[in-house]
C-alpha cells in the first residue's frame, strides 16, 4: 500500500495522456456493454424459466394450424403435467410500426403454465370473468399509456370476424409484470373462447401448444412420444424445448448477430491496441527513473509489480467506469423503438467485463513491466 502514492504520481506525470488513455479504455468498455446488450437482445431470453416446458408446432412450419383436440390427446401422454395453446393473431395497433405480439389463450391454464408472468389475483379474476378481456405486459401498457378499463381496438392482419370486420376490440383487465428481467412484457393476451367463436374460418384450430412435463430429465423422451402420437395424421408435429424454440427464432436472424459480434470483437481489440501502446510508451519514457529506483535498492520484482500495478489500475478504473456507463445507458432500454424488446446487459457480462479489464491491465502492462525488470541499472542511469 505504501507504493500507492508512487503509482499515483506516475499516473499524474502526464495528466493529459493518462486521461486520454483512461477515456479510450472507458469507451472500449462502454462498447463492450452495448455489445453484450445487443447480443442479449438478438439471442433473446434464452436462459428460460421453464426447462420443463416444450413447444409443439406443426411439422412443416409454424404458420400451419393444429387441431384444438390435440390437447386432450397430449394430456393422456404419460409425464405430461399440463397443456395449453396460443395462436398468432398478427394484430396492428394504430400503425403497423407499433409492433407487439397479441395471442388468444385460455386464461387459467395459460397463467398456470407461465408463472414468470406476474398478474395480481383480482386482475386474474377479472380476466376469467370478462369474455372480451385482455391482459397486457407492463412495457406495452407504458408505451401506449393503457390503463385497466381501457378499450383497445386492434386490427388483425390475419383473422377476420364473422361480420367481416378485421378490427377486434379488447377490454384491458390486467397488466402483468415479468418475474425476471428477461421476461418479455410486450405481448398482449386475450381470450381464446371469444376469439374462436367470433373468427371467420379456422374454427377449432390453434397455432402451437406449450406442454409442461413433470420431470425435465424426461423432456426429450416425452417430446418423441408427442410427435409419435400424431405421426401420419394430417397435421404432424414437431416438439422441442421452449429454450431451443426461442433460440431458433433468434437464429432466423442468424448470421447478422454473428457478423456484428465478430466485427465488434475485432474493434474492441484495436482500441486495446491503442491503449497498450500508450502505456508501454509511458514506461519507455521513464527508463531513467526506473533505473534510479533500482539503484536505490528496489528489487526487479518490485519494479515489475509497480509497472503492472500502474497499468492494471488504469485498466480497471477505465473498465469499471465504462461498464457503469454502459449499464446506466442500456438500462434505459431499447434504443431502436420496439425492435429489440430484450435490450439489457446481463449481470454475467458485467462480471466478464471486469475480468476483461483486469486481463487488459496485465496484457498491456506485461511487456513494459518485463522491460522494466530487465533494465540494467548502469545503462538506464546513463539516460538521465
Amino acid at each position, binding site marked *: 500500500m505504501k507504493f500507492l502514492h508512487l503509482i499515483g504520481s506516475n499516473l499524474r506525470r502526464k495528466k493529459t495522456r493518462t486521461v486520454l488513455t483512461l477515456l479510450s479504455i472507458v469507451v472500449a468498455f462502454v462498447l463492450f456493454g*452495448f455489445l453484450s446488450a445487443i447480443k442479449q437482445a438478438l439471442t433473446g431470453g434464452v436462459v428460460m424459466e421453464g426447462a420443463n416446458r416444450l413447444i409443439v408446432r406443426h411439422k412443416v412450419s409454424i404458420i400451419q394450424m393444429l387441431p384444438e383436440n390435440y390437447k386432450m390427446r397430449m394430456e393422456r401422454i404419460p409425464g405430461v403435467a399440463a397443456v395449453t395453446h396460443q395462436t398468432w393473431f398478427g394484430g396492428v395497433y394504430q400503425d403497423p410500426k407499433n409492433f407487439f405480439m397479441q395471442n388468444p389463450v385460455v386464461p387459467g391454464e395459460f397463467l398456470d403454465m407461465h408463472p414468470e408472468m406476474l398478474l395480481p389475483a383480482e386482475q386474474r379474476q377479472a380476466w376469467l370473468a370478462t369474455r372480451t378481456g385482455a391482459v397486457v405486459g407492463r412495457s406495452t401498457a407504458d408505451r401506449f399509456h393503457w390503463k385497466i378499463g381501457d378499450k383497445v381496438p386492434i386490427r388483425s*392482419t390475419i383473422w377476420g370476424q364473422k361480420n367481416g370486420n378485421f378490427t377486434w376490440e379488447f377490454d384491458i383487465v390486467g397488466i402483468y409484470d415479468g418475474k425476471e428481467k428477461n421476461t418479455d412484457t410486450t405481448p398482449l393476451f386475450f381470450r381464446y373462447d371469444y376469439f374462436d367463436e367470433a373468427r371467420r374460418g379456422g374454427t377449432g384450430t390453434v397455432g402451437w401448444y406449450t406442454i409442461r412435463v413433470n420431470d425435465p430429465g424426461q423432456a426429450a423422451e416425452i417430446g418423441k412420444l408427442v410427435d409419435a402420437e400424431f405421426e401420419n395424421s394430417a397435421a404432424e408435429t414437431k416438439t422441442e424445448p421452449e429454450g431451443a424454440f426461442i433460440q431458433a427464432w433468434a437464429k*432466423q436472424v442468424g*448470421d447478422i448477430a454473428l*457478423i456484428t459480434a465478430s466485427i465488434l470483437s475485432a474493434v474492441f481489440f484495436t482500441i486495446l491496441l491503442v491503449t497498450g501502446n500508450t502505456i508501454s510508451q509511458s514506461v519507455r519514457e521513464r527508463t531513467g527513473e526506473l533505473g534510479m529506483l533500482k539503484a536505490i535498492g528496489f528489487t526487479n520484482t518490485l519494479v515489475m509489480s509497480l509497472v503492472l500495478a500502474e497499468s492494471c489500475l488504469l485498466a480497471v478504473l477505465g473498465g469499471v467506469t465504462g461498464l457503469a456507463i454502459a449499464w446506466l445507458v442500456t438500462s434505459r432500454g431499447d434504443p431502436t423503438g420496439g*425492435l429489440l424488446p430484450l435490450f439489457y446487459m446481463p449481470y454475467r457480462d458485467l462480471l466478464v467485463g471486469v475480468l476483461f479489464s483486469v486481463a487488459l491491465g496485465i496484457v498491456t502492462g506485461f511487456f513494459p513491466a518485463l522491460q522494466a525488470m530487465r533494465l540494467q541499472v548502469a545503462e538506464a542511469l546513463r539516460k538521465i
Partner: protein
Amino acid sequence: MAGPRNWLSQVVAVTQFGILSLPQRRGSAAAATFGIAGVVAVLVGVLSVAEGFRQAMNASGSPDTALVLRGGADSEMVSGFTRDSTRIIANAPGVASGPAGPAASAELFVIINLPKLSTGSDVNVPLRGVERPALGVRDDLRIVEGRMFEWGKDEVIVGRGAAREFAGLKVGDQIKVGRYNWPVVGIFEAGGGAAESEIWSDAAVLQAAYHRGDSFQSVYVRLQSVDAFGRFKDSVTADPRLNAQVYRQTDYYAEHSTAVTKLVTTLGYLIASLMAVGAVFGALNTMYSSVSARGREIATLRALGFGSTAVVVSVMLESVALAVLGGTLGALISFVAFNGFHTATMNWQSFSQVTFALAVTPPLLVQGVVLATLIGCVGGLLPALRAARLPIAASLREL
C-alpha cells in the same frame, strides 16, 4: 507580413518535419492509424449488411409490376383471395397482355422449415406457388441449372440464394411438404432479388398440398407501362366486388426492407460513433506526443520567424494524413472482407428468410473515409493549438 507563398512554404516545411520524424513515433502513429482503420472497417462492414439487404429487396421488383393483396394485409403471408377475385384483378385495365391472356399470376405464399446450413437450425423458407404468367411478370427469371418444373406435376425449382443457404435444396434433392415429397428439378436466378430466396412450384399443386381449395394469397401483374399503375390501382380498389390494396412492387419491397435496414443502420452508427470517440482519444494521444517530441524544433522554427498558423495547419495536416491513411486501410479491409459475402436473415414482415450478399458500395467507402478525416481533425486540433502556443523561449532553453 508573410505572403501566401511564403506561408505555404512554411506549412510545407513544418509538415515535412512532422512526417520525417514519424518513424521515431511509429508505435503510437501505427496504433492511432490502426485504431481508425478498425472504426472505419466496422462502420462500413455493418452498413454493408443493411445496404446488401436493401439492394436485394430493391432488385425484387420493377416499377412496371404491381402486387395486389387483400385489404388490411401487410404481407402476402396473411393475405387471401378467391379465384373469382384474382380473375377480376387480372382483367382490370392497365394489365399488360401476355401470350395467353393477361400477364397476371395469382400466387400462394407459405413457409416450410428447413435447416440453415450456417447454423444448422430450422428457419422459415418461403415456398411460392405460381401460375404460368408468372414468368412473364418476372421477366428476369432464368433457370441456371436443371430445368423448369412441369405444370401440374409435384416438382419445385429453387432460387439460387435459397439453394446456397439452406440444406437439401440441390437439384435431385427432395423436399418434404406434409406427406408429400417433391423433387427439386432446377435452380433459378432472378436478378439478385428476394425471389432467389424462394422455392417455387405450380400454384395448383401447392393448393392441393396445403388444403387451400381454390384460393390464392396475392396477384402479381405486369402493367402496360410504368404510368398504367394509377389506372390499375384505381380500378382495383374501387371495384365493389374486391377488398384489395395495390402496391407497386418496388414500393412494397422497399417498405419491407425498412425494418431490418433501420435496425442494422441504427446499431451500426451507434457502435461506430462510440468507437470514433475512442479513436479520437488515440489520435489525440499520438498528436500530443508528436508535438511534445518536436517541441524544440517547433520553437526553433518559430524563433526563426515561422508563423503560428503554419504550425497549427501542419500539425492538423499530419493528423489528418494519418487518419485518412487509416480510413482508407479500414475501407479496403471491409471491402475485401465483406463485399459479396452471402448470408440470409429474417424478413419479419413476410415471416421468412431473405438471402442476400453484403454490399460495400462506393458511398459507404466515402462515408468511412469522411469519418476518418473527422476523427483526424478533432484529434489534431487541440495538439495543434498547443504546438502554436508553445512558449518559444522556454522550449529553446531545453536545447
